[in-house]
Structures are given as C-alpha cells and as structure tokens.
C-alpha cells in the first residue's frame, strides 16, 4: 500500500479476567486475540462479525478506553498504548468515538451547544470566542440550525441526536473517528442521511474512520477495506472489492450468504452457506480453528492446527487452511 497508515495496530490482544469462586487460578477471556490491521489516512476500515467477536473491545482499546494486554497501536508515528498524562490527553483529542445509542450518550440536562463544546473545554485550550465559532461551524456541518443550539437532547429526533453526537465527536478536530454501530438504532431513511453526512465530512476534513457495523450493506457502502472478526480473531481482511466479490474464508461466505437480498424477491439467497450451532465458549476455546465446529468444509485437521492468515494478493488475507483450494468450491459464491 502506498499510503502511510494513520492507524496501525499490530498483534493487539485485550483480555478480561474471569471471576471464578474459590482460590482457583486466575483465568482470562481473550476478547481480542492477536489482531493486526491498518487504516490509511482519509479511508474507512469496516469491522464486521458475530456478536461478541470483539469488535467493540478492539476499538475501545485503540481509543484507550479499555487497557490492551499486548500489542502496539500507532496513530501516525505516535504509540497510542504507552501514552500517559498530558500526552494521553493530547492523543484523546485525535481519536473520537460515536456510539450506537444517541439517547444515552448525551447528557439530558445539558443544552446541546454545551454538549458539543464539552470536549473543547476538557481537551483543548481555545478561547471562548474560538470555541463559539467552532460550535457554530459544527452545527452547520452536521445540518442543524443555529437556533437549535439552545435546546436539550429530548427535544430532538433520534437522527438529530446522532448528528449532535457527530458534531461533538468532531469538536476537537480528531483525525480518527470510531463509529460503533453509529447508525444501527436509526430508521433507514434517517440512516441514509447520516451515512451521507459521514462521507461528506470525511471528504471535507480528511477524516479516517473505523466503522463497526453488523449491517453488511452499510459496510459495503461505507468502507474501503473490511476486517471480519470471529471469536477475537480477524479471520479475513481485504479491500472492499475483493472481500465482497471474492471472499475466501468460510465464515465470510456464510455471513454474506445470510443477508436477505431485495434483488431476488420470493426466494431465499442462492447458495446459502448454513453454519448451524453456536460459537464455542469464549472462556474455553478449542484448539485449532475457532470456526471449525460450525464450518461446512472443516476437516479433522482443522480442530488440531490453528490456521494462520494467508495472503491472496497484496490487499487480501484469510486465516483458513483451505484458502485458494478446491475445498472452498463446496461453498462457492458463483451464480
């Protein structure tokens, strides 16, 4: 890749201690397990995957909102994970989070102008006049009217509240914005407004997004590259076209085939890849491939040997023993 990445994550792991009664040994749940990815400046990386696969946890670690256990995360040249004190405060300004729920993430007792200004108060040293100007500009950028600044969150619709959340995230002129299911709670019509807004702001301010969503249509529309997670691991990673046109991991194929399509009314998706059963217990992971118990092409070897990421071209990799082999034809995407 020619672009230098704005965000570069290497071998990141995040673990949570599991409380067990008695004096037993401490044990840990590895919510994110040895994950690496990069996002070039001005681009969007999507993270998709099963509920509980570690998407939010990985993003929280990058934003220093949960402690990482191992690994490196760099924002430009700066090491994110080692920052403390004033350096950490400066770093926080450059990374902002937009959450799923516009209702609970806004303080109901504050006027929305103050909500949007708050990060400026705590993370910057700007004058009152400068802050006022920034807030005015932000309201305009996200499509809210100036007189609405004096209102409280409950006086806005869900979509408008999400706009306020976006304005607030933009206040410190961050370089990286993490959108965690940022449009999932919105109706489709309002969702389209917000997605267009996010892309316009990206072009306008050169923003870089880490975009977490369970909606593959939205991810396909928004993202330049995509990482697919399963049980704490990235199982496949590729540029937008390769991932959707030529997915290589059985889980990715199952995921894409499960999405109901509008273009063939009256029939279920063709070539649906069924993955019955549940994912394994994250507290007690099996050896080998974590997907083996549900994988339609798994062979005995899969539950013994862990598959490592294998490259398919320069911008595509998948962690499966059968990448690029005939075994994948059984769950082909061909028409």
């Amino acid at each position: 890749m020619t672009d230098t990445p704005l965000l570069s994550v290497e071998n990141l792991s995040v673990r949570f201690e599991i409380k067990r009664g008695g004096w037993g040994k401490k044990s840990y749940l590895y919510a994110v397990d040895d994950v690496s990815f990069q996002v070039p400046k001005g681009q969007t990386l999507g993270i998709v995957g099963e509920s509980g696969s570690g998407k939010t946890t990985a993003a929280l670690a990058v934003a220093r909102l949960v402690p990482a256990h191992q690994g490196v995360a760099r924002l430009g040249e700066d090491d994110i994970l080692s920052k403390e004190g004033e350096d950490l405060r400066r770093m926080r300004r450059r990374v902002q989070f937009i959450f799923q729920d516009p209702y609970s993430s806004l303080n109901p007792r504050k006027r929305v102008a103050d909500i949007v200004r708050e990060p400026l108060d705590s993370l910057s040293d700007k004058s009152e006049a400068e802050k006022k100007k920034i807030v005015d500009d932000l309201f305009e950028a996200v499509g809210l009217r100036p007189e609405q600044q004096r209102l409280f969150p409950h006086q806005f619709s869900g979509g408008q509240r999400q706009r306020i959340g976006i304005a607030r995230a933009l206040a410190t002129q961050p370089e990286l914005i993490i959108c965690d299911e940022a449009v999932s709670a919105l109706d489709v019509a309002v969702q389209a407004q917000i997605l267009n807004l996010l892309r316009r702001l990206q072009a306008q301010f050169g923003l870089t997004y880490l975009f977490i969503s369970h909606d593959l249509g939205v991810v396909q529309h928004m993202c330049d590259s995509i990482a697919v997670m399963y049980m704490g691991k990235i199982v496949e990673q590729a540029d937008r076209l390769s991932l959707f046109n030529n997915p290589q991991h059985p889980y990715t194929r199952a995921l894409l085939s499960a999405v109901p399509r509008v273009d063939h009314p009256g029939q279920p998706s063709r070539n649906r890849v069924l993955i019955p059963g549940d994912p394994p217990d994250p507290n007690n992971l099996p050896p080998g491939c974590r997907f083996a118990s549900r994988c339609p092409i798994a062979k005995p070897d899969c539950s013994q040997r862990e598959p490592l990421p294998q490259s398919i071209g320069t911008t595509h990799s998948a962690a499966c023993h059968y990448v690029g082999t005939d075994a994948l034809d059984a769950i082909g995407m061909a028409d």
Partner: protein
Amino acid sequence: MALLEVENLRIELSTRDGTAPVIDDLSFHLDAGETLSFVGESGCGKSMTALALMGLLPERIGRIASGAIRFDGEDLTKASPARLREIRGNDISMIFQEPMTSLNPVFTIGEQIAEVLRAHQGLSRQAAWDHAVELIDAVRIPNPKGRAGDYPFQMSGGQRQRAMIAMALACKPKILIADEPTTALDVTVQAQIFDLLRDLRAQTGTSIILITHDMGAVAEMAERMIVMYAGRKAELGPVAQIINHARHPYTQGLISCVPHLHDVLTEDRPELFEVPGIVPSLRDFGRDECLFASRCAHVTDQCRSARPPEKSFEGGQIADCWHAEAM
C-alpha cells in the same frame, strides 16, 4: 373467504396530547398459508396493528374506534375478553422482538412449552412434556431432551428466539404474528430463523404476518406486503411487483435509501438516496392531507388539501398517493 379480513380499522390512542388515530382506516386480508409483511419506519403503527389483531391493545390508552377484524368470519372487535384469550391460545399467536420479555426466567423452556400445551390442548403432564421436546426439536435446538431442562438465561439469543417460536407453535396457530423476530440476532442466526419459519409454514400451512424494517427480509419471506406510514397504509401488493415498481414515493424512498448488498460490487459508490425529514408525531396522524407531503419530492397543492384516495393497479397493487399513476 380469506382467513383474516381487516376492514376500515381505526384504532385511537388517548395520550396527554389528546386522541389520535394510530391506525387510520386500514383494510387488508390474509389468506391461509400466506406470508404478509408489514414495513415502515419506527412509530408508523406496525406493532399496534399486531396488538389489535391479538386483542392486546394497551389498556385504557388504545381502543378500536371503528372497523372490523374478521377471523374465519368472526368479528374479533366484538368478541369478549374470554373469547379473545381463547383465540390467542389456539388460533393466533405472536413472537416478540425480545424473547426474554416473553419467556419466564424461573421456568425451564420445556416446562413453559408444556404448560401451553396442557392449557390449550388438555394434554397430560407426560404427553405435554414429550410434545414440548418434539417442538424444541422441530425448531432445531440441538439435543432437545437435554435442552428442554434449560432456563432461558442458559441459552443464546438465537436459541431463546427459537424457544419462543416453539412456544408460539405449541397451539398449532392458524396465524403466527412475528414482530421483528430477528432484529436482535446475528445475520447468520437470522437466516436460520427465517429458514425455520419457511419450513414450518410449508409443513403446517400456518399463515405468517411478518413485521420488519428490513426490505431484504420482506423480499425473502413474504408474498405480499403493506407499507405503513403514520398510521396509514401507503402501499399494498405483491412483494416482487412493489420492489420492481413501487407506486408510492414513500415506498420508493424506503427501497432506495438503503445500501443493499450488490451481487457484483464495482468501484461505483453514489450518494445514498435521502428521504428528508422524519415521521410526523402521533398528534398529527389524523389530518386530512397526505401525511408524507412534507418529505415528498413529488408534492403538489392537492397533496396538502386532502387525504389521497386508494389508487388500484393490476395484480392487486394499491397505492394511497395522489400521483401514483405518474410514478
């Protein structure tokens, strides 16, 4: 005669702001063995329609003001509470979005399903339990004998939703109403639940009313659909026909504002189509005008002057829009 016929149904909600028609002059029918889908944005009255069919409108707040709901010829709007309870137990059942709210946390799922069977089919304790295990098997929960003894919290979200479906099927309903049954689930699990519903319908001939906000789900599951907007029907008709050529601007907006997965993806990424604005608030629902007018790209003075009439097209497609022919 259709299995279910809803005629000019009007449901009024009394809130602090006064009384408003949350369902306003809604007519539709449901044939035996058919799947009919309701779509529309949040607050348009989809769940309220379902609750009305079940005789479960919020007490003291909601009431059926006029119209008829004929199930097998019997008008449910005139039925006694006892009769409605009987119908809910035997003929029409519902699965809700969040299974935890409808499963009882202190009983095993086997006990809960068996209880339904004992109450409605008068089975003995042992027979009810055996049948419960069969139903758990039918909804494809692995190891049904063992899992029947599990409490809801011991199951995954997808399994709980399947347990809910098993319970809803326990009385062999003629109509199964599914209100956003997969919204909280992963797409891979959603696909399994949809496959399951389709198979069950094929085996039992149960009619399904599927409420969803996902046009893809509608396309995959239903023969006919009703698009609701602000308590009114915007459009009704065969799914494929509406997706190919919607006659109501709101339907067109709903279909084209969503970034659908493409079969073959290209570099091309145009801006998404936007429907500006939001759904009007409940207190504006009853007004004599097109309630979509403030958001519509095709609006004329006529649209603001009176509620649009039904315009019928071939194949049973109906659109409530002044300019439907021109769309």
